[in-house]
């Protein structure tokens, strides 16, 4: 079984988000990058399938050279090979098209993306890739078992879970629940050493146009100070919620 895990490099979750003075770009100064958390749940599931089913796991990212440290981390976690498509990820459609090209060149049985990336929150790469390739797609995936050539999946829906099955290949959008937080793999020294020997290929991108572009950014408006009530004065709080905020 061949698995492709699509990785997005995103700012660490504690990053204070700032934009350049002209508001045209995200200010990357001092920003630490991490594996997008949703993708990391997916990668961990893939590594478990490597262990249980002898699957071969390739990680891929569409990104600039700075993303290679993240791919190396994925290799240290246990992926067998890495591919970097050498392009700035202009928009979700652009990324999905680049990934499609990789999947056409080299077929995979299982393609794992994250439910969404925590930077642009588009939640679109998996769904677009699946539609481009006419493959079944399950997002918000909180369960995945492989049984022969079938995938058994669970999708978290508003207020419940939907179970489904499909023949491989399938595309999923991973999130927490697909594996538990405690199952995430922290690379050890051996993994880090081995990662240096594993292949990290750099591929030229397809020349295609993105379908959207960001004109400028804005920060949220600063908010007013909190209004505090004494622990004995829940009436005061309820009164404010009813008559001032009008939310009760």
């Amino acid at each position, binding site marked *: 079984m061949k698995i492709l895990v699509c990785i997005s490099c995103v700012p660490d979750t504690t990053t204070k988000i700032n934009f350049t003075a002209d508001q045209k770009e995200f200010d990357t100064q001092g920003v630490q990058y991490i594996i997008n958390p949703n993708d990391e749940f997916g990668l961990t599931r893939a590594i478990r399938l490597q262990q249980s089913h002898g699957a071969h796991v390739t990680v891929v990212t569409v990104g600039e050279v700075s993303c290679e440290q993240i791919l190396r981390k994925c290799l240290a976690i246990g992926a067998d090979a890495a591919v970097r498509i050498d392009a700035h990820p202009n928009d979700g459609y652009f990324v999905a098209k680049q990934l499609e090209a990789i999947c056409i060149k080299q077929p995979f049985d299982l393609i794992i993306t994250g439910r969404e990336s925590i930077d642009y929150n588009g939640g679109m790469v998996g769904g677009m890739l699946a539609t481009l390739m006419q493959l079944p797609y399950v997002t918000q995936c909180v369960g995945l078992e492989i049984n022969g050539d079938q995938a058994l999946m669970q999708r978290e829906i508003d207020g419940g879970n939907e179970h489904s099955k499909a023949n491989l290949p399938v595309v999923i959008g991973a999130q927490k629940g697909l594996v538990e937080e405690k199952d995430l793999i922290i690379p050890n020294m051996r993994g880090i050493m081995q990662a240096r020997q594993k292949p990290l290929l750099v591929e030229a991108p397809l020349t295609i146009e993105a379908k959207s572009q960001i004109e400028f950014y804005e920060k949220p408006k600063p908010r007013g100070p909190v209004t505090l009530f004494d*622990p004995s004065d829940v009436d005061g709080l309820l009164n404010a919620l009813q008559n001032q905020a009008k939310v009760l």
Partner: protein
Amino acid sequence: MAVVIFIETQNGKASKTGLELLSYGRSIAEATSASLIAVIFSDSDTQELTDHGADVIYTVDTATDSNFNLERYSATLSEICALEKATIVVVSSSSEGRYLGPSLAVKTGATYLSNAVALPTTYNPLTVKQSCFTNKGFAISESMSSCTVLSLSSNAFGIHPQPGRGEVKTYPYASTKSKLEVTKVEHAQESISIADADIVVSGGRGLKGPEHWHLIEDLASTLGAATACSKPVSDLGWRPHSEHVGQTGKPVASNLYIAIGISGAIQHLAGINASKVKVVINNDPEAPFFKAADYGIVGDAFEVVPRLIEKLKALKKA
């Protein structure tokens, strides 16, 4: 020219977010002299859709297919979009809307822009404000296609009823053979989902253990609210993952968010910041949540919450 809205249903009826999408679509239709097309995969009463702005309503009878079906829904919608020459399609930011949007965009050759938080600022080309970095910023993005699929952040626009023409048509459900077979759907009993809730009551590690969750549940049921929790609470197994909210959990955009015993870590706040009014109850006056909240009580949850429940019950009776 047409604006097409995908109306989600709940028990066969248009959902509240569906009505919000209609209000949003109505404003776009007025601004661009387009007609507003509502598509609903149910044979429910359409009067409500007319009252909320629909000029044309397509009802699609899915017969035996009682679950949301990505392939068949997006095939049906893309046919209707082509027929009506849609320039803007709006879906919600619920799990269905965000599941459908990217697929529909590929099928129709449209641009997909997620998490719109306001009306477009221009229409030719279309530009719209989207939330990004999990509500820590906004991007003003331009679509470079003649058709754009937008997902609207829930509660970003509100419901403003304004009647449309209300012409009702039926449309056949696409016969596309689905590659995905739904085998079972489990619904949590009777609970209000975080996505739909006007009010969300959320508990953190400050509640000390799952045995104290009746406080959160009682407060929530008194308010008709959904229950939620911080990440460590779900990691510890005190509550199910489906209740975990924040940057790596579910997003919350309710009218009122009540945080009890939650410190207000940046990853937690990012996911709930889109809520309109935030209340925090925490015994530590230095908890970061107080900097992000509108109202707060510095106090012990085990004293304050029972008092709140009692007062609310009395208010309800009055």
